């Protein structure tokens, strides 16, 4: 190890860091370089707001996909957030410590179930049920929302539990000393104090929901239409890229990169919101 002096190591590490960061920058730049010219050539307005997606005729409107991604993500929130937060509160505040120490890691392990398996269960279990009860193809926004909601549960529960547990014990003790019940303490005090962490967990879940590809390709039906009801089949932005990228050429391919740019920007926005929420937490403390 004497071969590397102190300066040598620092230089080596700087090269490593530089290569890693340039590699990542390469990807981001690649996507933007391939996608942005398309936005100018074709027109961002037509791209984002037209619902005419017919690549063979040179039409690249992704509004149906934006709509589908939005509704699937919203639905996943409606399923995952209440269940997740409820579960987190219950496990953190109303169960003995040992129960939580077993259940929480167990749930985190369940987060490791691959998305194709969730998608598969959506196709063989959930879609037929939706078809039976509501009619329609079963492969729908609703199926996508439910499956994604289930997929983000471990994330929401785990991070929310961490946030709730991070609330200082003194807050709770003060409240209980004043005669409040545990539930009153929880909903009037603890949750408000843990709010930013809980919000961050939901935003992380949203990020995961928007980015999911395999499960949605399997259960949402992939139609190119603006979903008018949860029972309609629809195609998300990620599914669109996955379905067409292996054969798209020319402007079609650029349109898919432009879709990547859109997804990138959405993630940047979500991340910024999350970091603002977390910064607020630091100030409150």
């Amino acid at each position, binding site marked *: 190890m004497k071969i590397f002096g102190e300066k040598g190591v620092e230089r080596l590490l700087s090269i490593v860091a530089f290569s890693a960061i340039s590699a990542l920058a390469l990807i981001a730049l690649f996507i933007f370089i391939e996608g942005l010219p398309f936005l100018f050539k074709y027109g961002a307005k037509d791209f984002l707001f037209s619902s005419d997606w017919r690549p063979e005729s040179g039409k690249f409107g992704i509004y149906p996909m934006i709509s589908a991604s939005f509704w699937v993500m919203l639905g996943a929130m409606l399923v995952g957030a209440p269940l997740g937060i409820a579960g987190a509160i219950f496990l953190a505040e109303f169960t003995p410590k040992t129960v939580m120490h077993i259940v929480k890691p167990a749930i985190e392990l369940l987060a490791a179930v691959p998305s194709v398996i969730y998608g598969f269960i959506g196709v063989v279990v959930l879609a037929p049920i939706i078809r039976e009860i509501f009619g329609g193809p079963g492969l729908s926004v609703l199926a996508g929302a439910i499956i994604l909601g289930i997929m983000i549960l471990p994330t929401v529960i785990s991070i929310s539990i961490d946030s709730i547990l991070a609330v200082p014990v003194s807050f709770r003790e003060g409240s209980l000393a004043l005669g409040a019940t545990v539930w009153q303490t929880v909903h009037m005090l603890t949750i408000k104090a843990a709010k930013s962490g809980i919000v961050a967990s939901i935003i992380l879940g949203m990020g995961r929901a928007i980015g999911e590809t395999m499960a949605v390709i399997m259960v949402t039906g992939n*139609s190119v239409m603006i979903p008018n009801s949860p029972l309609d089949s629809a195609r998300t932005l990620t599914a669109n890229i996955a*379905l*067409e990228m292996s054969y798209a050429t020319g402007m079609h391919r650029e349109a898919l990169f432009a879709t990547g740019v859109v997804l990138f920007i959405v993630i940047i926005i979500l991340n910024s919101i999350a970091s603002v929420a977390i910064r607020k937490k630091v100030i409150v403390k």
Partner: protein
Amino acid sequence: MKKYLLLFCFITAVIFLGCGKGKVSVTLAGSTAFQPFAEKIADEYMKANPNITITVQGGGSAVGIQSANSGAAQIGMADLVKLPDEAKELTPTVVAQDGIAIIVNPKNKIENLSTEQLRDVFNGKIKNWKEIGGMDSPITVVSREAGSGTRSSFEKILTGIRLVNNAVIQNSNGTIRETVANDENSVGYISHGILNEKVKALKIDNIECTTESIIAKNYILVRPIFLLTKEVPEGEVKKFIDYILTEEIQAMIKKDGLLPAK
């Protein structure tokens, strides 16, 4: 110290792996209709020729054309009625013909559709099975993605089809078969070569989708299967393509549901 030894061993192993031991490798990519057949034929070929590795990928006919052009695959598989402009630099060889079967769920009582009705169903003009003599439920159209050879051929032969926009899209022949097998209200199209008892093939204009009716040119939904190469096939690629065109393999293809190249 131990860490570096481990790393060294691993790097040598990786380099060793990376050399590939001088095996020649041919990659086919494209048509999901021909893919199962290509894989079976490749298995047989590799048994007789252990020095060659033949890999088959799917993705649809457009992937076949594109990967042949880009060199990602040595042979592109495309099942198209007419090869598009993108393929004009490539050399096509017909290795088989295939019928497109219109399938519905076995529980569906419909047996036959006219070409008019078929067109209207996929256009979305006919929305309910009862309009064509079936049960009272909305029709779920299942189709392939835009780059599919089966889909382009289907839409070209039938003319005048603009797929209804609430059609469910799946990305391979096998997936369409599974979807139709599970949804009583659905209708889709798949390669005749992969029909099985889970789905029911319809008659079109009262003509069944069978090898005989296709050979007799009565059943109209047929397309050739092309193997596309960047130049005129030579070397290992030529040997494999010739192998597919031998009587033995063509008979096997016919037995399994495709038609020989004729």
